[in-house]
């Protein structure tokens, strides 16, 4: 029991304690004229969430996080499936490490590379030109939801770079789930006359769900709270993380920053409970 005390004290006092401190602050407000923080208990700051500008930030960020999650799942599937079914144990260990290693290199550095890839005269443009399909860029830039004035400042780039950064988080638990599907299930399905597509939808996908959900915890959560990447890529429209960062810093509106942080926290806690019910924690 003694062993437990220091770590529990740390987690409860430092971590949960600071979250409690932040919660307290979210019920303060800012005085309109002086710009000073009024420390009386009020719901005023929470009420600001329904203002259109603030509501947009939440919807935009949740949509971004959801798109990144879906794209990660789509890209992760072929590699995870290949790793789970078709390679020798040695090769699997190698691929596993190869997928894992980028997660332990600085995410900032990996994001930096995309600023150089997407640059006006950069490698992506060059490659597309060599393939004679550089028209694709203009199509993307003029598309309604993902467009922008240049590759770096388009919404497309933000989704792309997040997908790149968090992809390993999706591949690894997905591979674990796929690996656990007994060979006989797939054989039974095809013996009973199911075509590969049907087997995939009705057998593989449902059994892969814990892995997909486990991966999505990270892809969703990390996108939701990030404020670094939106300052490097995408349009000038704020994400939730940026709003927290700016309100806490430049704007000096700590209560509003706290309120937005709790929006992210509540979304994630609900997400974690749903994920736990979907059996995702066993796949982690």
């Amino acid at each position, binding site marked *: 029991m003694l062993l437990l005390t220091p770590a529990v004290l740390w987690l409860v006092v430092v971590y949960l304690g600071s979250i409690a401190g932040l919660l307290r602050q979210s019920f303060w407000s800012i005085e309109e004229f002086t710009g000073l923080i009024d420390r009386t208990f009020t719901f005023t700051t929470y009420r600001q969430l329904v203002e259109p500008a603030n509501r947009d930030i939440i919807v935009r960020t949740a949509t971004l996080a959801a798109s990144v999650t879906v794209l990660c799942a789509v890209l992760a599937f072929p590699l995870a499936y290949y790793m789970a079914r078709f390679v020798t144990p040695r090769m699997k260990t190698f691929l596993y490490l190869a997928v894992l290693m980028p997660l332990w290199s600085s995410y900032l550095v990996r994001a930096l590379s995309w600023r150089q890839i997407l640059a006006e005269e950069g490698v992506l443009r060059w490659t597309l030109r060599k393939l004679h399909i550089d028209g694709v860029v203009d199509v993307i830039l003029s598309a309604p939801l993902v467009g922008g004035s240049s590759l770096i400042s388009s919404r497309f780039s933000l989704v792309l770079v997040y997908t790149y950064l968090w992809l390993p988080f999706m591949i690894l638990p997905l591979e674990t789930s796929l690996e656990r599907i007994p*060979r006989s299930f797939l054989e039974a399905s095809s013996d009973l006359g199911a075509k590969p597509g049907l087997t995939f939808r009705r057998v593989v996908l449902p059994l892969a769900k814990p892995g997909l959900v486990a991966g999505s915890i990270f892809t969703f959560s990390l996108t939701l709270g990030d404020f670094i990447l939106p300052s490097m890529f995408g349009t000038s429209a704020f994400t939730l993380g940026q709003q927290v960062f700016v309100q806490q810093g430049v704007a000096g509106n700590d209560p509003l920053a706290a309120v937005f942080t709790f929006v992210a926290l509540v979304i994630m806690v609900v997400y974690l409970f749903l994920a736990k019910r979907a059996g995702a924690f066993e796949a982690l």
Partner: protein
Amino acid sequence: MSARSGSAGLGLRICAFLVMAFLYLPLAIIFLYAFTTQSTSFTFPPPGLTTEWFSVAFRQSDMWSALRLSVTVATFATAVSLLLGGLLAAAVYRARFFGRDALAFVVVLPIALPGIVTGIALRSTVEQFGLPIGYWTIVVGHATFCIVIVYNNVVARLRRMSPNVVEASSDLGASGWQTFRWVVWPNVATAILAGGVLAFALSFDEIIVTTFTRGSEPTLPIYIYNSLFRPRNKPVTNVVALLAITVTFVPVLIAQLLTRDRESVR
């Protein structure tokens, strides 16, 4: 264990290869542009290659002080997390107690919730108490999520260890200390080492929590971030980025091999 069956379709193999290339090509780009002769843009292919950016980068004293800060912060955060995370894993493994499941949930929160939550919560609370923001608040913020990494590594190893060996040891008359020293420790040592290395790497690369908990001194990731918006000498950033990757890559690879080996023979 599902047997490997036949070979993958060509389409699947191509897709798998492309995804792997997608993961690694950007790192090659960082490497390439550390040598470009252009100072302000990233034309492909680079018009020429030079190593002069390395000497420019290594002459910058603020880069060295950022590196020093990152290394010392990561060292302290790792030390704290090894102690606390290791003890926590031992306690959770040994005893069943009230609230054990709740505790297991709380433990993953610093990793599962966005880093911005840890960062701003810590900052606002420290400020509410009127305490200074600086070196030690960075360490405390980092230790909070590093504990989780060490805990996960050690607890996973303990779970794979047969409880019989501990019982056998005490049945044969070993004291608690002897059992720990000669039975438990040889089993968990590599997991603790691996957990420590991973905690160090995580702390070394962290930027979100750090943004909120730091004083005026930048850590290496913040130094890199700030230099992104410098108009000139852009390849210098790539040199520093390569340095940042180098510091963690080899130790992390070794740490992973140490833990993977055991898992595959389980």
